[in-house]
């Protein structure tokens, strides 16, 4: 499982990049969902998001999940390309699969890569 060391993570499997302000769902999450067929970003540029507020709705062949904001901040960009290519979330969740970018975010309280790796291992059954 892919857990890049420069990113921060939430317990609900979202990632946050403190360098760019980008966020999305983690490799673990896309693996759980399996083949993603639909994604809808539910926030717009200019909106303020709070941690834990839904930023996207994701549907796969067999499951559905909400993606939550991993940090507070103001939305400055939304990935318009995702809705036409939802499979990108499976193939490249940390790169082209970015969902929104925020500014003014505070990443304290998020897990670092090591902590998230341990968290994922503990959950596996």
């Amino acid at each position, binding site marked *: 499982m892919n857990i890049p060391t420069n990113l921060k993570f939430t317990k609900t499997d979202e990632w946050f990049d403190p360098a760019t302000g980008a966020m999305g769902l983690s490799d673990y999450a896309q693996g759980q969902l399996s083949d993603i*067929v639909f994604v809808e970003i539910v926030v717009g540029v200019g909106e303020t998001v709070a941690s834990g507020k839904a930023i996207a709705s994701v549907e796969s*062949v067999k499951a559905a999940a909400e993606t939550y904001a991993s940090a507070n901040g103001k939305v400055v960009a939304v990935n318009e390309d995702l809705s036409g290519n939802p499979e990108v979330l499976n193939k490249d969740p940390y790169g082209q699969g970015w969902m929104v970018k925020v500014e003014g975010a505070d990443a304290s309280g998020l897990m670092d890569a090591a902590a998230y790796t341990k968290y994922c291992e503990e959950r596996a059954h």
Partner: protein
Amino acid sequence: MTEPTIYELSSPGRTGVTFPDPDVPRTKLPQNLLRKDLPLPELAEVDVVRHYVNLSKYNYSVDGGFYPLGSCTMKYNPKINEDTARLPGFAFTHPLQPIETVQGNLALMYTLQEWLKEISGFAAITLQPAAGAHGELTGVLIMRAYHKDRGDVKRVKMLIPDSAHGTNPASSAMSSLEVVQVPSDARGNVDLTALKAACDDTTVGLMLTNPNTLGLFDEHLEQVIEIVHDCGGLVYGDGANLNALLGILRPGDVGFDVMHYNLHKTFSTPHGGGGPGSGPVGVTEKLADFLPAPLVGIIEESVDDEPPLFGFVTPKKTIGRVKAFHGHFGMLVRAYTYIAMHGPEGLRQISEYAVLNANYIKARLKGVYTVPFDRICMHEFVAEGQWADAPGIRALDVAKRLMDYDFHPPTNYFPLIVHEALMIEPTETENKGTLDAFADALIRIADEAKTTPNLLHEAPHKTPFGRMDEVKAARELVLCCWLPEDYGK
């Protein structure tokens, strides 16, 4: 070998059923309002009939075999019901005819109302909802309206067990209620401690399926109901599992305030490949005023030997109508016929033998399949489709392999609280031989899982079609068999 689509079979110039020329003078058509072409197929009647007969051969059905689908109650669909529903006196009556001309229909509906109330112990009932989920929405709206009417506007939360069918939380959300999940305890009952903690003055009520989706009768049922009533909430009964309770227990007697019936489960109306169903909703006296309008009632009492005059009545504080017209009358005729042919003893036998059949299969599978809650079950039970020594085998593989033994698989992956769940409900209309054959097949598959797992992974092998590419279906959406630019080529 696949059957072409109706559009692929179409050939320009063919006609099927045609109609006479007008016997009245023609009136000019309003040219500016007309459509240019009508891209419907062109086939002769024999082609249409062959097409559908060929399609039907690809279907598994109750008439063809055993369908142990948990929570669906796939019992035999009596043929007499099909005949009675089609009697011209029923089939060719218009819903808006004057009531004097449809007293037969109204008498049937009134009597069915009385019978269903008696069966489950409720004071009032509506036959209007079209399906189970529709009945749930109706029931939830009634609960909401009841509290609002009392001025109790704080109540916005619906408590729902984690084993509940998805329609329960969905119906609550559609009524703008917040869903609060209540966990189950180690024996499959509603966790009383968690329930007590969740119940307060913001509680609309609890939606409870009993027996639950594990096929278990809640061992603390009366306590559960008391806890909810004590905090001022109402108890909704999801009647999907009523097949275990006919003549055994009346939910109204034990404290349920509102319950929906599934006529297409418990009362034998056919599933039709996905519908139509029918979901009447019964309520206690205190909720009667909120039922959807209209209900069938007695407009003029019987005098001497004359029958009463039946008509439609509107409950005083009705939530309103939930669909056009009166409900799925055609299904009501079938349910009426069914209940008439069973009587009180016959109904009890349904539940006795439904429960007997489920426990028998469970006993046959003992030691081969893990049944997480090992108690006497009701009309269904849940087994795990996985084994420690069969790595990589999941419930889905067991299900697909069952098709090679000519059985429809049980319900998969529901309820969510059991991993790799296989929910098995045989119903009372299956004989011992069928149950033994089914158990034998499952036992063989359990063995195959350990010795030749690929047989399961690649199953089914013997059916006309194999496993589907569901990813392709979702990612490359093709939802229509004709394209405007291709039509007529």
